[in-house]
């Protein structure tokens, strides 16, 4: 789960990590009031969406599709400019490298006091899955795409790994700061800052904290000018406040609904709906559909031991996608019983009516019972024994290659 920059900065502020004064706004009027209250002649007017690349993105009118403004983050030197920029941002579509061509509707704005920048750095905290430890990564090349820096000048990226039992140690913080060429007040500031950021990371169960740029001001202060914060969803049980921070408009509604039903669903662009048990098998099912010339409409894992209700819900979610022209059910029962899936398929077809071709592959636990249920019914479907047969059949039925 990701949060907005303004929320991330709130976390930073309460942990003592230096950020500029700023105000979260939802309207142009609020933005103008914010400008007055900040008492800074120069302010940054920043679109709040979860995707990165906002500065280099473009804003479009959702109705006409016209380009309104280049850049989703603007520096305003007057109240008039604040008005102009916030009008161009709020209620419009921001397209960045990370949003895809459809972009994101911007309904939140952050107006932040400007500061005099001497140098821009990059700083990130994340879990390094290979080292199985928290990794703190910093670079002197701030404000740039970090993947490009990693590609072109890997020596500019400095890393430290935190031993989970020892915690983040003083020498590590010092070494990282010195590797960035910091000294004096700035080094001291940096030292304190990454200690606090590590606390933010661990106490909030973050999956990612990225500050790009982290800046050194002309007065040698270190300030987090950006805040990209993601939380580890697995830890939601111990962070009740995440519910309030969650911006559902940033999430695909069907994915949210599936999540609530205990299903794992990701919408894709194709036309073959997939209903599978297990994440790996669900991915493999998509891959094999593609291999046979089809395009999967979704990733859907019903998990282990799903009951009839849950399988029905999964079917409904697939059928709601207007692009779906056919469905492939692929079950290899471990905990999951095939007969339960078979019964759910039947009741869905009775209740909702299935107007698209259906191919069913049942294997594993109680597959004979499952197949018998399907065979005994008058359900119009194709029953197959392997995943490859299933993919071939469904692609053929919807008139693919």
């Amino acid at each position: 789960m990701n949060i907005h920059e303004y929320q991330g900065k709130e976390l930073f502020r309460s942990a003592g990590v230096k950020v500029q004064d700023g105000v979260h706004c939802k309207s142009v009027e609020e933005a103008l009031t914010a400008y007055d209250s900040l008492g800074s002649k120069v302010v940054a007017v920043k679109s709040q969406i979860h995707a990165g690349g906002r500065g280099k993105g473009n804003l479009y009118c959702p109705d006409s599709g016209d380009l309104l403004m280049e850049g989703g983050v603007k520096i305003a030197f007057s109240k008039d400019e604040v008005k102009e920029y916030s009008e161009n941002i709020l209620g419009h579509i921001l397209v960045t490298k990370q949003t895809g061509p459809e972009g994101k509707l911007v309904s939140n704005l952050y107006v932040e006091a400007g500061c005099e920048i001497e140098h821009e750095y990059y700083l990130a905290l994340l879990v390094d899955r290979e080292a199985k430890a928290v990794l703190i990564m910093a670079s002197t090349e701030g404000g740039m795409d970090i993947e490009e820096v990693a590609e072109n000048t890997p020596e500019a990226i400095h890393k430290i790994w935190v031993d989970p039992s020892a915690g983040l140690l003083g020498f590590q913080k010092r070494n990282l700061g010195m590797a960035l060429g910091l000294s004096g007040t700035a080094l001291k500031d940096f030292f304190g800052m990454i200690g606090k950021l590590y606390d933010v990371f661990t106490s909030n169960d973050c999956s990612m904290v990225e500050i790009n740029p982290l800046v050194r001001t002309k007065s040698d202060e270190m300030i987090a000018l950006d805040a990209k914060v993601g939380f580890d969803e697995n830890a939601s049980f111990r962070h009740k406040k995440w519910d309030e921070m969650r911006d559902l408009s940033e999430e695909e509604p069907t994915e949210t609904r599936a999540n609530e039903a205990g299903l794992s669903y990701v919408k894709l662009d194709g036309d073959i709906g997939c209903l599978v048990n297990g994440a790996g098998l669900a991915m493999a099912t998509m891959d094999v559909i593609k291999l046979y010339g089809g395009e999967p409409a979704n990733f859907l894992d019903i998990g282990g031991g799903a009951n009839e209700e849950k399988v029905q819900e999964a079917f409904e979610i697939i059928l709601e996608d207007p692009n779906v022209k056919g469905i492939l059910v692929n079950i290899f029962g471990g905990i999951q019983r095939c007969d339960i899936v078979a019964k759910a398929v039947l009741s869905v077809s009775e209740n909702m009516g299935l107007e698209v071709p259906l191919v069913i592959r049942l294997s594993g636990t109680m597959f004979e019972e499952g197949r018998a249920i399907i065979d005994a019914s008058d359900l119009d479907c194709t029953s197959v024994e392997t995943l490859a047969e299933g993919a071939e059949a469904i692609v053929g039925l919807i008139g693919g290659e």
Partner: protein
Amino acid sequence: MAIWIQEDSKLLIQGITGSQGTFHGEKMVEYGTDVVGGVTPGKGGQTVQLADRNVPVFDGMIEAVEKTDADATVIYVPPPFAGEAIMEAADAFDRVKGEGVIVCITEGIPTLDMVKAVAYVNDRPGIRLIGPNCPGIITPGANGGCKIGIMPGHIHAKGRIGVVSKSGTLTYEAVAQTMSIGEGQSTCIGIGGDPVNGTGFIDCLSAFESDPQTVAVVMIGEIGGTAEEDAAEWAAVNMSKPIVGFVAGSTAPPGKRMGHAGAIISGGKGTAAEKFAAFEAAGIHIARDPSEIGAVLKVALEKAGLL
């Protein structure tokens, strides 16, 4: 000789009185696993009926290992408590026997809990952690065998193919594929789909390489991280036995978590294409479709003069 778990290994169940613990406890006993007891804090002194066996419940792992001399434990504890359950098991095996295998089935453990738990386990060299978020490990026997986890026992048979996989149901698919060409399995291990886990691909490959019962390995990866690439590089130098590899997620879009917490392509890294390429470069026999694993394995066995 299989790896890590033998046909007669003695098993404890952490969370034995919970619905998952009891349900799968029964399935494991039915398969032939020697379940010798379980742990649920506060329920020590009770017993649980698992199929035809009545097993004792203990309050803690130290007592359980002392009283039963168990070789392994399987964890069905809910996510908020699973990280600590792993550490309790590691502590008990380390203190009492100096060795033990911990299999954690639980899905949804916070990543930072796993960072702590894995470091704790790694500090105790005799202790092996498998999982979390995995189907477990199974060593099929001539009659029954030892099944630790949630996989359907009946699809397996004792044999000479080692199976290692990040995914649950895809492991079953791989097992069915070995059976389709008349081959059984030495040991099958699901290492789990979480970003931070215990035993990895290389640990498994290395153990299969030294296991006399295993002649070839099927390895199933998925998108995310670089574990498959690292394993391929290691295998190119260290494995003499043939490997058949498949990677799930060729069609997964970047930046989207595909069910498993670890299955995500981030920053352009961890794609299936890269992993397949690494497999190919390491001389691993590739199946592009899991339904082909059997056929590819057959070719690999023939080439190695094993058929």
